[in-house]
């Protein structure tokens, strides 16, 4: 065995990564990020869609440096440890639409699994039906996995092809640096910025970027995945990834408690609504989509960083899904559901079931 030993592959490694994220996410809130949203991959990709003007929801527009850092940090780790493996071609278009509907589900709930964990750790009881929905969606996904669901094999590809998502993220960073927000204005020559609402709340650019790079680096090494945590428990009775996810929740809870960010309750929680059924159903849709696509939104970013072009397309699907979500009134707000949120969840669930039933080993 000549491989370099991966210290993050063991149980203590993944727990350490959960602890790191559990500390850094609430810290980002102290440094300026929105409430219970130290890190939220879905929300931040939605903000990026807004920053680029793909949707015009004025309160959620900002090119979030954390997301850029996740991809570039993962790329750095993959290059350093010789794990950069450019690959594409596993039912890519299907992954795009799984990304679209994963985002729509996330915007009905108002968060990805990371944020669901952070909301719980901040005392937001509405996260409980969300997390139960996540488990339910993944449970449906494991039924398909047990019955031969498979999107097919990837092919090796050119190194440059594996760099597409990291390059896109680097380009976003360049744009962010070249076109900073003009104080008090919602748009400069190119980019959109929120002047109020969650999109206007953010830690300093280089702090966000540094935290993103660090999380991207250690998450690539440890294969941290919130969907995988629940899937592996249901499918194999394995608790490896789960120990990392639980470490995140416990650490964030302790941290929030110590700094006075823990505020238990259901009403008036930051960027949250109290419609329990739709918190559940939105996350169930997301959970199923993540399971069918093989990773939570964070994991998809880390995979994209190590050269996985299919994961990169899932990320693009999520960004476009956010644009649909806000342009078509599918996304929720603290006031409640968007006008077309319910039919969007139904359509998304039907789509995911269609994918799950039709894409089996035998049909490839």
């Amino acid at each position, binding site marked *: *065995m*000549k*491989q370099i030993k*991966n210290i993050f*592959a063991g149980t203590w490694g993944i727990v350490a990564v959960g602890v790191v994220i559990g500390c850094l996410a609430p810290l980002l809130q102290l440094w300026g990020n929105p409430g219970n949203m130290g890190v939220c991959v879905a929300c931040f990709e939605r903000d990026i869609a807004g920053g680029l003007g793909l949707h015009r929801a004025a309160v959620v527009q900002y090119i979030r440096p954390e997301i850029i850092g996740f991809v570039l940090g993962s790329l750095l780790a993959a290059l350093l440890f010789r*794990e950069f*493996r450019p*690959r594409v071609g*596993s039912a890519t278009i299907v992954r795009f639409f799984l990304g679209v509907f994963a985002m729509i589900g996330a915007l009905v709930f108002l968060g990805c699994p990371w944020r669901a964990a952070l909301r719980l750790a901040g005392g937001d009881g509405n996260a409980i039906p969300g997390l139960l929905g996540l488990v339910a969606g993944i449970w449906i996904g494991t039924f398909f*996995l*047990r019955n031969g669901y*498979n999107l*097919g*094999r*990837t*092919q*090796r590809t050119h190194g440059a092809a594996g760099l597409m998502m990291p390059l896109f993220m680097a380009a976003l960073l360049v744009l962010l640096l070249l076109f900073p927000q003009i104080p008090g204005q919602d748009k400069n020559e190119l980019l959109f910025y929120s002047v109020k609402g969650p999109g206007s709340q953010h830690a300093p650019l280089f702090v966000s970027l540094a935290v993103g790079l660090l999380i991207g680096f250690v998450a690539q090494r440890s*294969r941290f995945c919130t969907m*995988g945590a629940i*899937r*592996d428990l249901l*499918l*194999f009775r*394995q608790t*490896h990834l789960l120990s990392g996810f639980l470490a995140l929740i416990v650490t964030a809870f302790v941290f929030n408690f110590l700094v006075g960010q823990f505020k238990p309750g259901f009403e008036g929680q930051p960027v949250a609504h109290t419609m329990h059924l739709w918190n559940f159903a939105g996350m169930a849709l997301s959970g199923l989509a993540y399971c069918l696509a*093989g990773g939570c939104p964070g994991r998809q970013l880390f*995979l994209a960083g190590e050269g*996985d072009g299919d994961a990169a397309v899932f990320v693009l699907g999520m960004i476009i899904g956010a644009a649909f979500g806000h342009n078509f009134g599918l996304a929720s707000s603290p006031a409640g559901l968007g006008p077309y949120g319910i039919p969007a969840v139904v359509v998304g669930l039907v789509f995911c079931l269609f994918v799950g039933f039709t894409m089996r080993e035998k049909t490839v």
Partner: protein
Amino acid sequence: MAKTVDARGLSCPQPVIMTLDAIKKGGGEEILVLVDNDTAKENVARALRSRGWQVVSIEEKEGTYEIAGRRG
């Protein structure tokens, strides 16, 4: 001759599902699993160990990992 599972090009959980299926169905004492990414390599090794198998060796050949396992 060890039973061979070719999980190249697949990402988790498929390589683990295929490996566990193979050790459940086959009566053999040895197994060889081919994967081509590091996550699958770690997960397959972890899954074998969790089912009481030994991971005898992991060799890399041109981007493919060959994981040799033996019933413990």
